[in-house]
């Protein structure tokens, strides 16, 4: 009897003690908040390709991109470091889903502008979407003097519309873990004017890109654009290149590192593409990795918060 009573007493005293140990437990489980996956990539570009990421609402991202000459130019050109191709660009997050941007490249003195919209956003908690899906549409204009353009023949009318090209992409991807993000980019590049009859106005392509995060502030990126065969051909093709899928042109392959330092992201990479906008990268890459036609290059991204959206009310 005494034992049962002691047990009863023990339990009775224990009950309030236990309650004190877990006061928060009294409130019960919280509803998980809806939250989208963030930081699939360090910045809005993988290297040349658009990534799953957008600039946040109200944030401007200034991008300075630079490609040196080909590594195989040898010591007289300091392995390409004597040459430079530059793109200066700017992006802005109109909303958390919509981003716009424009840039100006030294390559063909090109102006480019684009918009990227997140249709679906991968969900971290509180919802079920497994992927992010973005749609990208861009436009570029070759602003070279007409005498310097490839297609110009003396006396020919130089229509501005001839200088325009368009790029459309669907970007579908997923951040599989803290360490790994992958994306696929089926796309179409349209050129208003092409230089030879062998070149298609519409070039179908498929891009793939990925990121492996090595440390908190360092990531390894790679991207590849596959251009469907028989769609384009350079006006002059070396004899041993005639059997290539797209003679005179190569698929774009880039590999590099993202280094993040607070407000800046430095991207250092190797690529066979000279241009830094979609039409140039996908349809006008001529460098061959196996021949050492590799550019060393970097992108610097610096963000500025121009407008701060009001915090969501509780």
């Amino acid at each position, binding site marked *: *009897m*005494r034992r049962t*009573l*002691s047990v*009863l*007493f023990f339990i*009775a*005293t224990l*009950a*309030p003690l236990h*309650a*004190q140990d*877990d*006061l*928060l437990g*009294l*409130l019960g489980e*919280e509803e998980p*908040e809806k*939250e989208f996956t*963030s*930081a699939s990539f360090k910045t809005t570009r993988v290297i040349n390709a658009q990534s799953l990421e957008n600039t*946040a*609402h*109200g*944030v401007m991202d200034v991008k300075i991109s630079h490609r040196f000459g080909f590594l195989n130019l040898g010591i007289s050109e300091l392995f390409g470091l004597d040459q430079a191709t530059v793109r200066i660009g700017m992006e802005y997050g109109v909303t958390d889903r919509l981003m716009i941007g424009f840039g100006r490249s030294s390559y063909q003195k090109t102006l480019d502008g684009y918009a990227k919209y997140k249709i679906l956003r991968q969900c*971290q908690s509180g919802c079920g979407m497994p992927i992010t899906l973005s749609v990208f549409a861009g436009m570029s204009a070759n602003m070279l003097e007409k005498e310097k353009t490839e297609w110009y023949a003396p006396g020919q009318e130089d229509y501005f519309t001839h200088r325009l090209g368009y790029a459309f992409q669907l970007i579908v991807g997923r951040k599989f873990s*803290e360490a790994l993000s992958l994306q696929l980019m089926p796309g179409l590049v349209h050129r208003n004017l092409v230089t030879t009859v062998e070149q298609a106005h519409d070039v179908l392509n498929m891009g793939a890109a990925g990121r492996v995060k090595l440390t*908190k*502030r360092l990531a390894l990126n790679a991207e590849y654009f596959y251009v469907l065969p028989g769609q384009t051909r350079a006006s002059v093709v070396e004899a041993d290149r005639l059997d290539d899928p797209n003679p005179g042109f190569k698929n774009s392959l880039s590999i590099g590192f993202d280094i*993040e*330092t*607070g*407000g800046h992201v430095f991207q250092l990479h190797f690529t066979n593409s000279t241009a830094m906008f979609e039409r140039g990268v996908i349809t006008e890459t001529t460098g061959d990795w196996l021949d050492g036609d590799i550019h060393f290059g970097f992108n610097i991204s610096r*963000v500025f*918060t121009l407008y*701060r959206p009001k*915090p969501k009310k*509780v």
Partner: protein
Amino acid sequence: MTMTRHLLFTAALLATLTASAQERYATRTGHISFHSDTPMEKIEAHNHKATSVFDATTGAIEMAVLMKGFEFEKALMQEHFNENYVESDKFPKATFKGKITGITAEDLKKPGSHAVTVEGDLTMHGVTKPVKASGTMGMEPTGAIRATGSFTVKPEDYNIAIPGMVRDNIAKEIVIKVQVDHTKM
């Protein structure tokens, strides 16, 4: 024998009674903010979704806050805070378990503010450290039981590494401010 039995019964009964008579206050919308102030940069973040439960009979208080709920001035700062500093996916919550002294259950029955001290363990980024703070507690004219306080923590104490490049931008000591309005449970 019978006497002892009665005594024990009464004691057991009393113990259960005190348990049910506890005065508990709680909220899910507490405000916790932190501030880092250096000549280079001023950083602050606010979280309005802290949960807190206070037991006025024992003085015990428990708080929890989701790290991802902190809202920064700059979106990128918020991303870096979660991704690189506090690693919110690995350590989603910060919790505090402690005791408030300097106030009684009776003090909370009428409006007024009282100076209190709070002492306990703060768990953040997987590390638990004792903290002590002074603050105020009392009943607001609205009837809410408000507790306020502020204290400082060092990121290094919680294994939060600050890279050399931004060392001048982030204060050595981060000020944490708490203001929670509890209602009776």
